[in-house]
């Protein structure tokens, strides 16, 4: 019931958006290289699908996004756990982590491309960097929020460190952790595209750059829409995983 209504609402809003867009093109008299019509974009989409180039660019960007996300999440989780457990590690690392967040990623991206070349590695690192912070913060908050009495319970049972991690800390921190992962998943897409803007020979960010250079505005639109879809699908996957793993929580939200 709720689900079908959501889908209907989505289609209504999409249709309204497309009609508005088409009307803007018709009445505004914009040239195609300024604002292509939905039909132009769709046509361009099928062209790049047919010649196989879109798939190649999608594959490149996806590889960067997934690897960057995996790398960023792994590092952030491990470091976040250590920071949550040890005040001295926190005091040691916190200034650097906060400082790193005040430098805009677009300023670091060229450096990484210079150091690691225009290939996969530099993009993965940029994506990982942008994913890192929200996941780290949520890991720290999640692990610190584990109730003290449950820790006391585990201690009274003489649980080992590993048992406490597995039976208490991970499940207890998971809800907050997933908040960070949701944000991280969409940020990873941004990170990969930023990297591709700076220097790349394939990928959706590269495709946007090409389209801009040729005034092939329809192609830019195609790349942007594909990027939005990737981010949405990734977000959906994270939410899906969250719903599965945190079934015990769902009742509270309804």
């Amino acid at each position, binding site marked *: 019931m709720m689900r079908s209504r959501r889908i209907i609402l989505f289609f209504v809003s999409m249709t309204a958006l497309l009609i508005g867009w088409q009307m803007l093109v018709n009445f505004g008299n914009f040239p195609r290289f300024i604002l292509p019509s939905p039909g132009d974009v769709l046509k361009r989409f099928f062209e790049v699908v047919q010649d196989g180039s879109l798939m190649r660019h999608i594959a490149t960007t996806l590889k960067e996004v997934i690897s960057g996300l995996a790398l960023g999440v792994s590092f952030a989780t491990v470091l976040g756990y250590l920071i949550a457990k040890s005040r001295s590690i926190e005091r040691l690392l916190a200034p650097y982590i906060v400082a790193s967040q005040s430098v805009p990623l677009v300023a670091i991206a060229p450096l990484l491309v210079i150091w690691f070349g225009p290939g996969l590695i530099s993009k993965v690192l940029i994506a990982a960097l942008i994913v890192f912070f929200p996941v780290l913060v949520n890991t720290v908050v999640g692990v610190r929020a584990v109730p003290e009495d449950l820790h006391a319970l*585990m201690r009274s049972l003489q649980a080992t460190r590993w*048992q406490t991690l597995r039976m208490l800390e991970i499940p*207890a921190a998971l809800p907050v952790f997933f908040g960070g992962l949701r944000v991280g998943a969409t940020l990873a897409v941004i990170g990969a595209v930023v990297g591709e803007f700076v220097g790349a020979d394939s990928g959706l960010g590269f495709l946007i750059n090409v389209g801009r250079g040729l005034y092939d505005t329809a192609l830019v639109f195609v790349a942007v829409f594909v990027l939005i879809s990737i981010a949405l699908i990734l977000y959906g996957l994270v939410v899906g995983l969250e719903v599965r793993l945190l079934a015990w929580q769902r009742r509270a939200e309804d």
Partner: protein
Amino acid sequence: MNLLKSEPILSVQNLSAVFSDGNGDLQALDELSFSVQRQEFVCVIGPSGCGKSTLLRILGGLLQPTRGSVTFRGELLTGPRRGVGFVFQNSNLMPWRSVFDNICLPLEVQNASVSEIGSRVQELVDLVGLDGFENWLPRDLSGGMAQRVAIARALVHDPDVLLLDEPFGALDALTREQMGDELLRVAMHASGDGIPRKTIIMVTHAISEAIFLADRVLVLSPRPGTIRMDVPIDLPRPRQEQMRYTQKFGDLAKRLREAIG
């Protein structure tokens, strides 16, 4: 009666606990000494903030005393021990675990085999009357049911000693009395179910609850907590509901109330 018994299972000598917070030191307990016999049910009562919970945590090995010592089964207590079950103020269940999985936690920590866990947990589920609720999550349980789960969890690994920290404090008066009966049935007189009688130390601030349940009541003074009175409760067992309304019960209540001050 106590004279016949051998050495105490738990003995506390000159126990003091001092905590330092930001504003200096806070003395929670001051020079406590007492001992608990095997299979004895001792209640500790006192005004709030008198260090009752601190005392219980020290007995459970969760906190270290500043001075003095605790001897458990003839050995100096230095940390948590197997053979002790802990019931906390709130039910303290893991919200992501079902009733069954919460109860089996202690066995899981002890790496018991799956078959052993299955039968033992089912035994406890039946004992505390939660048959049919095995797959429920804590959020769907009432306060009384959740506390039953907590008691089952504390008993599942068959400890000799049960430490209860105001276990029924969050329950309404009626449920509270019921749970007291339950506790006696489950932990003290359940030999028919194959569970040996436990040694129980319970912190509470309810005088009538203490009298109804315990063999002995220790009254703590306001902070820093010292033992103000050690009152044997010579009501016959099994305890019955109507005992609550006898002259003797009333006299004991009056004595304890005056001792708390």
